[in-house]
């Protein structure tokens, strides 16, 4: 631990406070990206890959980039200052897992932009509902991860929500896929549409994986 004699920097826990803010900011980025993702999907389903959609895509890429930078800074600081030695590995993995969620969000938007799937209007509500559930699921895991740092007892509550929304997402995904395959669309279109259902649903599955590991970290973090 370094103690500075400069009156401006005399706060003993200054570096800790900065790092706390950076971790919060990182989680803000995950939440923000969720909102951008659902807005972008809404725009795509109604108006296709227009300028507004592209703007969302750029925004998502930028958020993901900032998230990456923040994650790296946090990781370096944790190692450089040898902070939380007993839980450092867990925290690092948690940050990587959350970063993976951001990558999936961003990746899905890019896939839509590149492949531009033709989604018939009858399935729009199904996709939007699935997206909302999945984003809520990820948001719950973000809250669980924040709680891991600030309020360990709340992790369990948020994890329960993650599991609930993941099941909901599964149900909605299955229902949507059944509807797609029951339609008169050609097999190639059906498979294309199924692919995007699976890609969106993967967010909820990943969120659940994070929640599972987080539950173990939380037990370890209890003194």
């Amino acid at each position, binding site marked *: 631990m370094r103690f500075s004699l400069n009156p401006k920097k005399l706060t003993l826990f200054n570096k800790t406070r900065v790092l706390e803010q950076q971790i919060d900011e990182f989680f803000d980025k995950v939440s923000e990206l969720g909102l951008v993702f659902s807005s972008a999907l809404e725009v795509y389903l109604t108006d296709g890959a227009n300028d507004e959609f592209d703007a969302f895509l750029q925004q998502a890429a930028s958020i993901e980039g900032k998230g990456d930078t923040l994650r790296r800074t946090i990781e370096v600081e944790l190692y450089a200052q040898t902070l939380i030695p007993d839980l450092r590995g867990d925290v690092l993995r948690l940050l990587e897992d959350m970063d993976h969620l951001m990558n999936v969000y961003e990746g899905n938007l890019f896939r839509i932009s590149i492949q531009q799937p033709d989604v018939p209007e009858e399935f729009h509500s199904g996709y939007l509902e699935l997206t909302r559930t999945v984003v809520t699921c990820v948001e719950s895991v973000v809250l669980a991860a924040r709680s891991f*740092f*600030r309020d360990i007892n709340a992790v369990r509550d948020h994890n329960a929500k993650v599991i609930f929304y993941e099941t909901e997402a599964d149900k909605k995904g299955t229902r949507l896929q059944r509807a797609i395959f029951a339609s008169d669309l050609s097999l190639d279109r059906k498979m294309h549409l199924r692919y995007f259902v699976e890609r969106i649903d993967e967010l909820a599955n990943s969120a659940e994986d994070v929640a599972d590991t987080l539950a173990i970290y939380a037990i370890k973090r209890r*003194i």
Partner: protein
Amino acid sequence: MDLTVLILLGSGLFLGWSLGANDAANVFGTAVGTRMVRFGTAAAVCSVFVILGAVVSGAGAAHTLSKLGSIDAIAGSFMAALAAAITVYGMTRSGLPVSTSQAIVGAIIGWNLFSNSVTDTQVLLKIMFTWMACPILAGLIAVILFKLVRWILNKANLHLLRLDAYTRLALIGAGAFGAYSLGANNIANVMGVFVPVSPFTDFALTEQFTLTSVQQLFLLGSIAIAVGVFTYSKRVMLTVGNELMPMSPVTAWVVVVAHSIVLFLFSSQGLEHALAEAGLPTIPLVPVSSSQAVIGAVIGLGLLRGGRNIRWGLLVQIGTGWVITPFLAAAMCFVGLFFLQNVFDQQVHKSLRFELTPRVVERMSEQGVPKAAYADLVGRSYESSGALLDAMTKGMPLTGKQTRTAIDHARIQHTEITEIKLSRYDFSRLSEVQRIALQKLAGQQYQYAWELAEALSALSPQWRRLPTIALNRRFNKRLDEDLAYLIQTFESR
């Protein structure tokens, strides 16, 4: 200073070094082992506070050790410290966790056996009782502290990083406190045996501040401890921090604090006096083992979690080590003293004489030693306290207190209050009234130490012992120290 004295003191310094290498690990082991505090920081903080603790408040526990057996020749002290140091070092090398205080107590008993001096069983039992009490007390304190800390942390909901920063600071603070207690409590183990034969004289730094001979001795010992910390404790620290039981930084803190509190309780003269003033029972001031305190605290926390984490096999091994240590040190000291005396021709104990003159007999009877024990022994003299006691207990068994009274009264210690010695005497510890009383005795000679004490107490109430209750212990202890210094100074033959 005489070179021989320095060589002989070397064994104490060796003991200090091994104490620094092993016991300091108990203070900072968990902090360094959990990688919360860097070794360099730990070693620096530890060294500074060990030295402070030893010099500022090391005197309390040393007194109890001196009571257990007064090793009166420096060669004897050398062997006692060497036997303890070798035991500690050897046990550590063979992978057994050690207790320095047990080693030194064992060594003192070895000296007592060799010199045929009586071991004060009451003091020995008191020390052995604390060996049991210390780990149990540490365990209890750790459990209470742990529950309290967990409750506070649950309420406080600190950010993980903030908690980390606070814990780090708290570990350094607790380590500093622990090192201070370690210095205060264990310096007696390192240098206690040299107190009666200290080669130093009081040294005035400023007008107000004097470094007494005992403090100089303790300073030297604590520097040896500090060297031990820097040179050899890193590996031990990592072992302690990782091997005992998986620990979180907060648990590590609880262990260190519980251990420090126990060490502090057994070494604080101030606390003893405060408890006595409040009419509460006091805690005996004896050197306790920091390893025992740490292990007690860890076991306490382990049991709180259902005992599944504890390595019981290791615990049995540790317990065996604790039982073996004093016996090994006693045996080694005994054999060592034999060689030192018969091969190297060193005086390992003073030749003493105990004589039961009619005056002594009368005085002993007044002090409550039953006459039947020595009625036939009047006029006889003995070469050791053991021989005296053997003769007396043939008649009838004596209690521990009666034994002590008999030995103290029958021991011949010629003193002569000469003008020359009076002119050189350091009166700084004495009050004006005490000084005048002492000067009135100029020209007088005494055959027994108690005669001098009696003469002084007749001249001034300030030279009189107060009734033996906890509240008066501090006064009586100081009076005993002053009298011991007086006798040492004015001893004529």
